[in-house]
């Protein structure tokens, strides 16, 4: 390893990166796009339009409707006069939920007899339907519990409490905002994309331009060339990361519970493996096009299998194994762990170890594969 040569390669790479417009796409446009896409589109299922057929027209029925609205999951969009109105609104998509309150609703409640309320949900989107059904059930049981207690108290039996009191606490993300979960994931995804895409072009572009032939007749060592090409990309990665962290904090209110220093330090382990993987692809591909294809094949599953969107525990076991081979899987846990849970190295080292091992394997493979030959 000759430091003068390493410096020369780094200086050349930095100059070229700064003059290449693609660099700015990767360090500015791409992170912004991903953040906006995933960050805003993943906002929670709130304010779903409801249509209500209130046949009771009583204080009790209004209290029920208000209970739905108070959850913020539902907004009353229209009132129906007959069942066909509800059918029409759900068919036409102007409402996602229909609430039907029977005429004898208030009377039954006063008589302490069970009153039934019908709730129909547009379940063509299973995800929002699940939320709405849970909302309806929650509203129903809360209200009936309250009525029950009132009834008992009215009969002079004194204050009472429910036999089982389940109190759920949402740790790490008390408001249950999905952005808080998704945005740190976007950070990991963006870093994965920019580092792999930038590093996969390193060798193969020189090969396509014909400049690699000129480089391999010089005394340059493969390790000098690789390191000289990768170190500037580590810089770009950190720039990227800082930008996203600022945006995540300013625009999405993502907290930083743990140590930023630790996050930056552990990210180096991730860069090691993701840049190594890109470089390995670059030494294997015979053209830039081919490198892009290989990279896409590798990156697409990493979105699906890394736990970015789908919980890994719910994946079939084989897909979980594949996920175990992806650096992103471990990095995802590291990023969320530090940002949301505020945990330290004592909890994260099982993630760091595979990152370092994967990095070492792909890096050594890339250096071994890179021969100072042209055919």
């Amino acid at each position, binding site marked *: 390893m000759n430091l003068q040569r390493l410096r020369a390669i780094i200086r*050349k790479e930095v100059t070229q990166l700064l003059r290449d417009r693609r660099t700015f796409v990767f360090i500015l446009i791409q992170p912004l796009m991903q953040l906006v896409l995933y960050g805003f589109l993943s906002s929670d299922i709130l304010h779903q339009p409801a249509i209500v057929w209130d046949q009771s027209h009583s204080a009790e029925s209004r209290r029920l409707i208000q209970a739905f609205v108070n959850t913020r999951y539902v907004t009353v969009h229209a009132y129906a006069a007959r069942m066909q109105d509800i059918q029409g609104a759900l068919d036409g998509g102007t409402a996602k939920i229909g609430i039907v309150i029977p005429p004898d609703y208030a009377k039954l409640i006063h008589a302490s007899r069970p009153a039934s309320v019908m709730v129909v949900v547009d379940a063509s989107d299973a995800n929002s339907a699940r939320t709405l059904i849970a909302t309806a059930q929650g509203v129903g049981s809360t209200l009936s519990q309250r009525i029950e207690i009132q009834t008992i108290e009215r009969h002079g039996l004194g204050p009472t409490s429910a036999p089982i009191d389940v109190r759920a606490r949402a740790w790490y993300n008390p408001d249950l905002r999905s952005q808080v979960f998704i945005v740190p994931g976007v950070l990991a995804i963006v870093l994965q994309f920019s580092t792999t895409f930038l590093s996969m072009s390193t060798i193969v572009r020189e090969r396509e331009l014909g400049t690699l032939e*000129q480089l391999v007749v010089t005394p340059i060592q493969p390790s000098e060339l690789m390191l000289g090409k990768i170190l500037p990309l580590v810089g770009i990665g950190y720039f990227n990361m800082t930008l996203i962290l600022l945006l995540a904090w300013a625009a999405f209110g993502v907290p930083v519970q743990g140590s930023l220093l630790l996050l930056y330090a552990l990210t180096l382990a991730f860069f090691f493996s993701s840049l190594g993987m890109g470089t390995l692809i670059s030494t294997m591909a015979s053209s830039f096009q081919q490198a892009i294809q290989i990279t896409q094949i590798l990156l697409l599953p990493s979105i699906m299998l890394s736990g970015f969107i789908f919980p890994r525990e719910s994946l079939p076991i084989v897909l979980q194994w594949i996920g175990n081979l992806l650096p992103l899987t471990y990095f995802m846990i590291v990023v969320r762990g530090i940002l949301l849970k505020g945990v330290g190295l004592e909890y994260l080292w099982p993630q760091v170890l595979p990152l370092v091992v994967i990095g070492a394997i792909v890096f050594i493979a890339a250096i071994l594969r890179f021969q100072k030959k042209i055919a």
Partner: protein
Amino acid sequence: MTAPDYSVRAFELSRRFGDFVAVDRVSFDIRPGEIWGFLGPNGAGKSTTIRMLCGILDPTSGRAEVLGYDVARDPEAVKERIGYMSQRFSLWSDLTIDEHLTFYADIYALSPTEGRARIDQWLATVDLTDQRGDLAGALSGGARQRLALACAALHDPQVLFLDEPTAGVDPVARRHLWDVIALLAERGTTVMVTTHYLDEAEHCDRLAFIMGGRVVARGTPNELKHRAMSGQVLEVESDRVIACLGAVEALPYVRGAELSGAMIHATVGSAEVASRLAYDLGAQGFRVAGVRPILPSLEDVFAALVEATDHSGATP
């Protein structure tokens, strides 16, 4: 180590790509300080041979020595001591002339003072001092080749391999490049240069013709003109040269004919058929102003070699 007798030696060097034999048992020696030309049409195996000598392509069989080092066994020792200018555009369009030269100065570990001095000196030699801040992508073809040559020669290599340095360059720029090559040779650098421009062969001390992967002739330019041609070239001056060329080619005792300016160069067995040629053309209605035996140009030699090789089959 003591200076070897030869700067470059190739022993039965061969390279196959699948079924295709690009280079077929090629042997030659290049002496220190000479300009050694490797001539042949495109695809003859010139670049493949040079790449094997530079240690970036493994030969299928045979071996090579550069400055006494076996290329296969010690490629890095070779790479430290040679310069190579590849046939393809080998510059980064988004780097300036200065940035290229600084890069190569560092790659060959020249000290900063030494590097700067050599860069200034080379910029003057290849006449690029005024353009040193320009991006390589914005340079003319001639300027690019001069920059590529400066990059390859900056570290003062003992052997310089130049693969088609003058390809796609205008005549003035070609002469400039050859002046620089001559200067390098005067300073003691061994230069192996390939070209498919035959007129450039005259700049070489010695040369070899390669065709279909085989060396078909070798020697000094003069030796080649005298020896390699088994026949005699007659220069025919006539009216209607294109029609006349056809008539000359059709004569049974003419082995080959081609245009050279406004003249026809016909290759025949001996000078004695000159008068017969003039008579035969006259009989076909051509006004022949003269038929003279001449010393063949390298182009004639090359044409004769192509002819001979085509008749015997290029690849045995």
